[in-house]
């Protein structure tokens, strides 16, 4: 395969958009073409935030249903909600830590059993990788680095043709200076967590 469609999903505030940009920059550094897309505005304020990164000679910045090669889910219910983007050939990497939606908090709907969600996903796709990215981020120094842990796990899964070093260089050159050390630690912990 010469091209990869990566769908990222999470909840507003989880840093999915920064992770999308770092992924694209790392891909470019590794010699690939890359385009991304993101949705701003209404998607924030605690709502779902979806973005995409295309790696290789793909020009369309969005992914149709069933066409994601990789799904990077920052929250279990959102990973599950994005399953329509996947097919039997997809690889899914998901955080296991829930963020309870407001609808559930006020008693309208319930949060499903996470193990059942993963069981279903596992039965449908080529591979499911799960990790407690929040605990790993705390281990790295801050829960704010959850997004970098997720990127580390994606890199560690070896699904994409992007070397670890390309991610590390991107983190060093393209993320905020005061967080570079934290992010490099978080990336390494995510990378070796699998």
């Amino acid at each position: 395969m010469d091209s990869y469609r990566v769908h990222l999903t999470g909840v507003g505030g989880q840093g999915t958009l920064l992770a999308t940009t770092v992924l694209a920059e790392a891909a470019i550094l590794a010699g690939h073409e890359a385009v991304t897309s993101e949705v701003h505005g209404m998607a924030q304020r605690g709502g779902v935030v979806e973005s995409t990164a295309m790696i290789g000679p793909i020009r369309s910045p969005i992914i149709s249903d069933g066409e994601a090669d990789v799904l990077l889910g920052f929250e279990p219910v959102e990973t599950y909600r994005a399953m329509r983007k996947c097919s039997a050939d997809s690889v899914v990497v998901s955080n296991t830590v829930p963020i309870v939606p407001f609808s559930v908090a006020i008693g309208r709907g319930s949060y499903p059993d996470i193990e059942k969600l993963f069981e279903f996903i596992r039965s449908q796709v080529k591979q499911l990788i799960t990790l407690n990215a929040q605990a790993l981020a705390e281990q790295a120094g801050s829960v704010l680095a959850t997004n970098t842990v997720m990127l580390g796990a994606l890199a560690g899964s070896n699904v994409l043709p992007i070397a670890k070093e390309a991610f590390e260089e991107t983190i060093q050159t393209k993320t905020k200076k005061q967080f570079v050390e934290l992010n490099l630690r978080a990336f390494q912990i995510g990378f070796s967590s699998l």
Partner: protein
Amino acid sequence: MHPLLTEEIGKKLLLLGNEAIVRGALEAGVAFATTYPGTPSSEIGDTFFRIAAESDLYFEYSTNEKVALETAAGASVSGLRTLCSMKHVGLNVAADPLMTLAYVGVRGGMVIITADDPSMFSSQNEQDNRIYARLSNLPMFAPSSVQEAKEMTRAAFEISEALELPVLLRTTTRLSHCRGVVTTDRLQPRNTKGTFKKDSARFVTVPANARVRHKVLLAQSEKAKAMACSSPLNRTAGQGTWGLVTSGIEHNYVADAIRDLGIEDRVKVLKLGFIYPFPDELAANFIGSVEKILVVEELEPVLEENLKVTAQTRGLSVPIAGKGVGRFSRLYEYDPGMVRQVIADYFDIEYTPAKPIDLQDDSGAPALPLRPPNLCAGCPHRAAYYAVKSVLKETGTEAVFPTDIGCYTLGLLPPLQAADFLICMGSSVTSAAGIARATGKKVIAFIGDSTFFHSGITGLVNAVHNKHNFILMVLDNGTTAMTGHQPHPGVEIVPSGWDKPTVSIERIARACGVEQVVVVNPINLAKTKKAVREALDSNKLSVIIAKAPCPLYEKRITGKGRKRGFVVGPECNADCTECIDTFGCPALYKNPDPHGETTMIINENLCIGCGVCVQFCNKIRPRKA
């Protein structure tokens, strides 16, 4: 230095479509930029805002799109290169100046960006602004990629100056918010000092002059058509007999589909970037060179109808189809899989689509909770809505709630449910007048501070003069929060180096002639409720300004973080869930453990310590340090 100000030529930058537009304008020597923020156009203005802080480029957030366009027009007729950006519905607000600016034309190149929003990710409609090009007779460009967004913006300045007409550049959400690699070219020097050469026969559109200028516009439009026919922005590719016509972001879906279906040698593509005036000569040659044509365009059948007119005029009988073929409709955006499928069907190519995992059909799939966006924990809008709804409940009053555009539109959602009517910016004030007059019922309208400046004031003057009777609550959080915390004339908490005067909403309301104007801090529930009660009792037009800064904005500007949070005391152990049933702060949630110590829990990571809940529930208390 801002990365877009780099002098380096040939540098590769990963840019957002909107940032590429700014770079293109800088490469064209833009000196003057205006905007009113609106998704998906906002990053254009925000990028200019940062660049203006470290260069001699002039930028302003104008009070609305009409103001932005007219201000830019003034600079442009004085010889400066100008750019004015807005979202699609913003061009409705600016449509009045647009139509006649086309008659008088410009001197310095002027590019107007319209960012459309097919599928309405953050808009109230999905109108296709390509139609504005035809209505105004102005040239329009439609880039397909981030690199093209930069190149076409730069080219638009050249065409604008050559024709002495403003040029429209249309993007959509998917291009504005796409990131791709852009290669830099030379930055042209800026001319920031203009001269206004008087020419009243041209610039003062009394009917006698306008009649002449309309002729000039049509003559320029003919020249523009000739330019479009020979423009490198319009090109054909391939040698096949199956014709595909497309422009904008859709071109990517077409290009990928051709590759995925392996039909490179069977198709010929007409890819349009200079889309208005429609390049009919070029199109006629294309139509004559293929056997059948599929038009791939989102929303309205603009290219399709132009092609059909061109074919009919020249007696060409090649089948041309677009809307209505497979899933191609006038609704919502297209996607790569859909375009691939429709191309395969139309040209009868064997194709097996991807099989998405279906959560609906599988009985083994667990049910999904919804995750709608919500007002943040500690948002003062929630407190204001809560106060209004409490007073209405306590007094047994029914009311209608016209609302407006901003974060506070989320007051629509349960449990607040304080939104009954919304069509456009400023419609709260004016529709309130109509609803109150027609029904004789209590009407409480909500408008944000930035929206009040945008288009609330004229409605308020009208309400005073025509003796309308309703309550207008201005939800003043001191920033244009929804689109990314842009400043507006009423801002009091400002970034460092800010030297603009503050315009008081309270004084405007009084100057409009409203007698009952009160400013309250919505975080103080008792005082806010008192103000609402008094407004209801007075039974006349009144304005309540509920004023408290957006906590996210305040933190960003002042660094002032959260205050000490609150906890639920052990006496919260009955069936009472009133806090989430009526207030609905996202930091408050029901204890998932039915045998837990308390019925409710406050999420300490989300609670910012605004202290509103503690004012209506005595079981909530400050968290111990």
